């Protein structure tokens, strides 16, 4: 799909993990990604917003899990065959927190040249980039921690 990963540091900056959220393919900055696991069991929190699926347990700690499809305003995928939870670290360096992003599938690790990203509306959606004949939504995970 994407360009094979290169080992240069500069290239590492543009490395993203592609995941599927509904009809969208989203690129998560690989630096923020801590782990990809099979979809964790989530316990809902009554009264929470739709984006927050609930709490899960990851590594013996509570992990808030957000619904990526709801975050990017995608239609929920119909019975994904292999859903995953992407564990990411967000927030400032002095107070990074662990978050889970529930996605329909984890695709691959690709390099998205920064200059190919067309800036978006800002905030959580950094922009969009063409990749392998497809438009990938590049996400700004730091925005989740602020």
């Amino acid at each position: 799909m994407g360009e094979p990963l290169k080992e240069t540091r500069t290239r590492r900056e543009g490395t993203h993990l592609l995941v599927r959220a509904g009809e969208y393919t989203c690129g998560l900055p690989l630096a923020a990604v801590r782990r990809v696991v099979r979809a964790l069991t989530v316990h809902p929190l009554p009264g929470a917003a739709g984006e927050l699926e609930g709490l899960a347990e990851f590594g013996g700690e509570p992990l808030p899990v957000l619904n990526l499809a709801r975050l990017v305003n995608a239609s929920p995928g119909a019975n994904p065959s292999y859903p995953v939870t992407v564990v990411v670290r967000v927030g400032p360096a002095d107070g990074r927190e662990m978050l889970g992003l529930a996605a329909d599938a984890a695709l691959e690790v690709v390099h998205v040249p920064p200059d190919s990203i067309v800036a978006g509306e800002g905030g959580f959606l950094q922009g969009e980039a063409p990749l392998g004949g497809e438009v990938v939504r590049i996400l700004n995970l730091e925005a989740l921690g602020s």
Partner: protein
Amino acid sequence: MSEPFVESFNHARAGLLILGGIAVSGLLLLLGAQAQGGPVWMFNAFLLVAIGVIALYVKVVYRTQQSLRVEVEGTERRREEVEISLVRALDRLRAGDLVNCSGMAGALPGRLSLGLTNATNALDVLAQQIQGSSIEVASAAGSVNEIASELASGSSEQAASVVEITAAMEELARTASQIAGNASSQADLAQAAEESGTTGQAAVEEAVDGVEEVKKRISGIASRAEILGNRSKEIYRVLDLITEIAQETHILSLNAAIEAAAAGDHGRRFSVVAEEVRRLAQRSQESVESVRNLLDEFAGSIRTTVVATEEGSKEAGRVLERARAAASAIEDLRGASSDTARVAREISLATQQQNAASDEVVLTLKEVSQVVQRMADGLKHFTETADRLNRLGLVIQMLAQSFHLESPHSLKHTAEQWAANVRRRLGNWEAIERLLEELVHRQGFVECLYFYDGRRGQTALVVNRQVVGDREVPGAVRTGEGFAERPWYKAAVKEGKTILTPLFNSLLTGQPIFTAATPVYSGGELEGVLGLDVNVDSWTKI
């Protein structure tokens, strides 16, 4: 004058003549003696004595005889009168007019009158009994006649029925013969069907064996297909496992890439390996998908095979079931054919026996027919006899009615009374008509009542609608045309009393009637004749 009396009178006269002769002889002797000289006184004495004896004789015997003669002549006249009265009374009696006969008996001397009256009364009672009995006899004879007619009719119907039954039995016998023939044919056919059924059953049993073998083979195919299906499921499970491993490997490769990226330059090689692992996992997944697709097709084929074998098995089962049903049906048919053959033979035998029995019945029925025919003939004779008896009863009744009795059963008496009523209304024609109207409804046996005024040629006529019904009265009858020339009119006028005519058929009803006709006198002059047409059938039913 009576003979003894005449003889006595003649003896008395003879005695007188003898006395006279003796006196004359004595006188002559005395005259002779005187002539010869005898005493005169002797002569005179003798003459005196002779005259005296003669006178005494005349005085005593002859006068007595003379008065007796006068008395005898009076008695003779009275006797003749009594004889005439008696003859007249007996003449009435002869005519059957016991009413007037009884009246005439009063003119006869005491014991004769009493005796005649008693005799007339006894005869009257007897005649009334005869009249009553004759009515009953006539009625009974009529009933016997009707019964005889019904019996004769029934007997004829019975004879006809026996003939019909005989014909039916003959037809039945013929039909039985046909049934016997048909049953025999049916028995042969049923036997042939039984043999065909045996052959067919063997063929069907072979077919059943063949179908069972096919079913077994289909079942074998189904078993193998099921085994294949189960194997396919196992392959699916293996594929799922491989997919699971591939997915895990995929995630593992991604995490390796993440770790490699985190390791910076140190993880460069590892990231390559991770990428290769990811590709391997992806290829594995793709291969699994290919295998899964192939397996889907394979499984689809197996399912199709299973479905086909199931359908084939079901169809074979159905064929087998039908074949078994056919075998069972053939067996039943064979049994039924066997039963049919047996029953048909029994029917044939029974119908042959029935045929023989029918022949016997026909013979018996013919005998019965002859008996019934003889009985019908006898009944016919009986009917004729009853008819004669009926007529005789009628004749007896007619004869009994020749008596004029003071009885309500006496037609003459009734006619006389009605004639007396008419006589009292002479001069009032409407009253006579009303009287006739009233009287005709009083006696149901009177078909027609009429009074013909012979002097004026006028007729009052009333018909009894209960007897005549709505039949039209002929104009000649209504006007009394030619009534004066009718036998009943002439006979009544001639006899001067009620007469009965012989039987004749009514112009109105066509039924047998007779007429009672009574002359009506006024002041000794004939005014007309009252006629009653009596319907015999109604009369005998009183």
